[in-house]
C-alpha cells in the first residue's frame, strides 16, 4: 500500500509574534524527505525563528506546523488542539537534530562525552555502545584524534563538527542547521560545509539557514528567500540565485554574491 509521500516538514500559515514584534507573517512551505532545503534572507527576516519553531524551541502563534505528519507541540483530537506535555515535546525532539550558530557544546564534557550524552541519557543506551558509536561519528566528521579534548581546546570548526556528530548520535530523521558557519573564521568554514555535504549525499533531510550561497547552489535541492517574515521567492537554488524574479531578492543577492 503506497500512500502519497508525507512531507518531512509542512508549514501552513505559520505566524510568530514576540509581544508586539510580529516576526513570522504566514509561512507556507513543504520540505520533502531527503531534501536539502536552504533558507536565506537578510538578518531579522525570521528564518532562524522559523527554524526554531520546527523543533518547538519557539511556540508558533498561529497556523499549523508538522514534522513527518505529526503536529509540532500539539495533539489534535477531533477539532481541538491539546498542548503536549514537556515529556512528549522532548520525545518529538529526539528525531530532530539541531546545530546552532554558536555550537553550544557542553563545555564540561569532552568531545566524545558530548556525543554520548543524549543517547545514554535520553535513549538509555549503554555507555559502552554509545561510546563506540560516538567514536565512529567523530571519525566520520574527521575528529577521530580529538575525542578526549574539551570544547575549549578545539577550534571553532572542530567544535561545530562535534556539534554535528552530537546531533547525529540521536539518529534523527531531520537535521536543522542555524547558520552553522556564521561564527567561524573564513578558513574554517570549508571543513564544516564538507561534513554537511557528506550528510546530504547520505540522504539526510536538512533544513539549512545559511549565508553560504555557494553551498546552497551546490548542495541545495530547494531554496526559499525570506524577508520581513514572509516567503518572497522559492524554487531550485540555481534558478533563484541566478535568475531572481523579485526586486527584494535581487537587491539582497547583489549584496551577498
Amino acid at each position, binding site marked *: 500500500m503506497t500512500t502519497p509521500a508525507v512531507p518531512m516538514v509542512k508549514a501552513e500559515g505559520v505566524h510568530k509574534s514576540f509581544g508586539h514584534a510580529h516576526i513570522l507573517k504566514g509561512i507556507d512551505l513543504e520540505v520533502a524527505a531527503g531534501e536539502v532545503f536552504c533558507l536565506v534572507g537578510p538578518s531579522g527576516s525570521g528564518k532562524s525563528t522559523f527554524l526554531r519553531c520546527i523543533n518547538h524551541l519557539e511556540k508558533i502563534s498561529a497556523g499549523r506546523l508538522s514534522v513527518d505528519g505529526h503536529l509540532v507541540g500539539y495533539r489534535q483530537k477531533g477539532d481541538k488542539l491539546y498542548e503536549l506535555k514537556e515529556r512528549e515535546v522532548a520525545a518529538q*525532539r529526539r528525531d530532530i537534530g539541531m546545530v*546552532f550558530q554558536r555550537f*553550544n557544546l*557542553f*563545555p*564540561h564534557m569532552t568531545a566524545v562525552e558530548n556525543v554520548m550524552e543524549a543517547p545514554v541519557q*535520553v535513549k538509555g543506551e549503554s555507555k559502552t555502545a554509545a561510546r563506540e558509536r560516538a567514536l565512529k561519528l567523530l571519525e566520520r566528521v574527521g575528529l577521530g584524534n580529538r575525542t578526549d579534548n574539551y570544547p575549549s581546546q578545539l577550534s571553532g570548526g572542530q567544535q561545530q563538527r562535534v556539534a554535528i556528530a552530537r546531533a547525529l548520535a*540521536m539518529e534523527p530523521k531531520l537535521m536543522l542547521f542555524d547558520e552553522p558557519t556564521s561564527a567561524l573564521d573564513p578558513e574554517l568554514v*570549508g571543513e564544516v560545509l564538507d561534513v554537511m555535504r557528506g550528510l546530504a549525499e547520505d540522504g539526510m533531510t536538512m533544513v539549512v539557514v545559511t549565508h553560504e550561497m555557494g553551498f546552497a547552489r551546490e548542495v541545495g535541492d530547494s531554496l526559499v528567500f525570506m524577508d520581513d517574515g514572509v516567503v518572497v521567492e522559492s524554487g531550485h537554488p540555481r534558478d533563484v540565485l541566478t535568475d531572481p524574479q523579485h526586486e527584494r531578492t535581487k537587491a539582497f543577492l547583489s549584496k551577498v554574491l
Partner: protein
Amino acid sequence: MSEPEDKAPSAPVPASNTEGGGAGAGGAVPVAKSSPVPPEAVKAIPVRHYGRWISAAIVLVLFGLVVAAFVGADITWPTVGRYLNHETILTGAVNTLWITLLAMLMGVVLGTLLAVMRLSKNPVMSSVAWGYIWVFRGTPVLVQLLIWYNLALIFPILDLGFYRDEMNDVMTPFLAALLGLGLNEAAYMAEISRAGIQSVDEGQTEAAHALGMTGSRTMRRIVLPQAMRVIIPPTGNEFINMLKTSSLAYAIQYSELLFSATRISSRNLEVMELLLVATIWYLILTTILSVGQFYLERYFQRGSSRSLPPTPWQRISKSLTSFRTPSRVGGKTV
C-alpha cells in the same frame, strides 16, 4: 590552534591557496631559512622594588612587637599547650566539624532545591521558595537557634501522627543546632545556587532540549555541573563561615568547641588560655577547609580554561622567587 593533524577533506582551502600561491610561497621561503641563530636575550636592569623591602621590614617589626607583647602578657602558655589536646577540647572540635558538615549538607541540598523552585515557572513553587528565603534570611541565626531549642515551650508534645514523643526529648541541643544552622544556611545557599544557575548560557539549555532532554534532566546533567564553577567559591566561604557561626550553638548548650573551652575555664578560671585554645583549633579547622576548597574549585575548573591554576605550593614558591627576581635577572647581588 594548529590544524595539521586535521585530516578532514577541505577542498575549497587548497583551491584558493594555489591561486595566490606563487607570490605568497615565494615570499615565505627565505624567512623560514634565515632563523637558525637564536635571538639574543634582552639585557636590562630590571625595575627595583624598594617599596617591597621597606614594607616587609615594617611588617616584621610590627609582628615582632605583637609577639613580644603576648610573650610578656599574663598568659600561662603551658596551660594553652596542655589543653590543646585535652579530651574535652578534642571532642568539642570534632563536634564543631560534625555540626558544620551536617548543617552545610542540609544547606546545600535544601538550598539547591529552593533555587530550582525559585526559578521554576510554577508560581506556587517560586512563591514558596521566596517566602522561605524571606523568613530565614531575614532573622538572626541566634534567634532561630533559640527558637528551635525552646520549641517545647509551645509544643510540649511532638505528634507527627506516626511518631509521638516529648518535644524536650526530641529537641536535643544537637538537633536544635542542626535545624537552626542548616535551615538558615539553606536560605543563603539558595541565593548562591540561583546566581550559579542563571550564569549558565541559555544556549546550553536549548542544546539539551534540542537533543530531547527534559527540563529536570537538563538541569541535572547540563546546567548544575556548569553552575558549580560559580557556586563552589562562595560555598567554600559559607563553609568557613558556618564553622565559625556554629560557635553560636554555645548558647543552646551544644558541646561544640567554644562550649567545651568555656566549660573548662569556668572550672579552672583560665579564661584567656582556653579562648586561645579554641582560637587555635578554629584556625586549624578553617585552614583545612580552605585547602579542600581550593582543590574542589580546581576540579570544577576543568573544561572552562585550558590550563589549571597553580596549587598553593606552586604559588608560594612563585611568590618567593618573584621577590628575589630583581637580583637574579640583573645578574647582580642586592
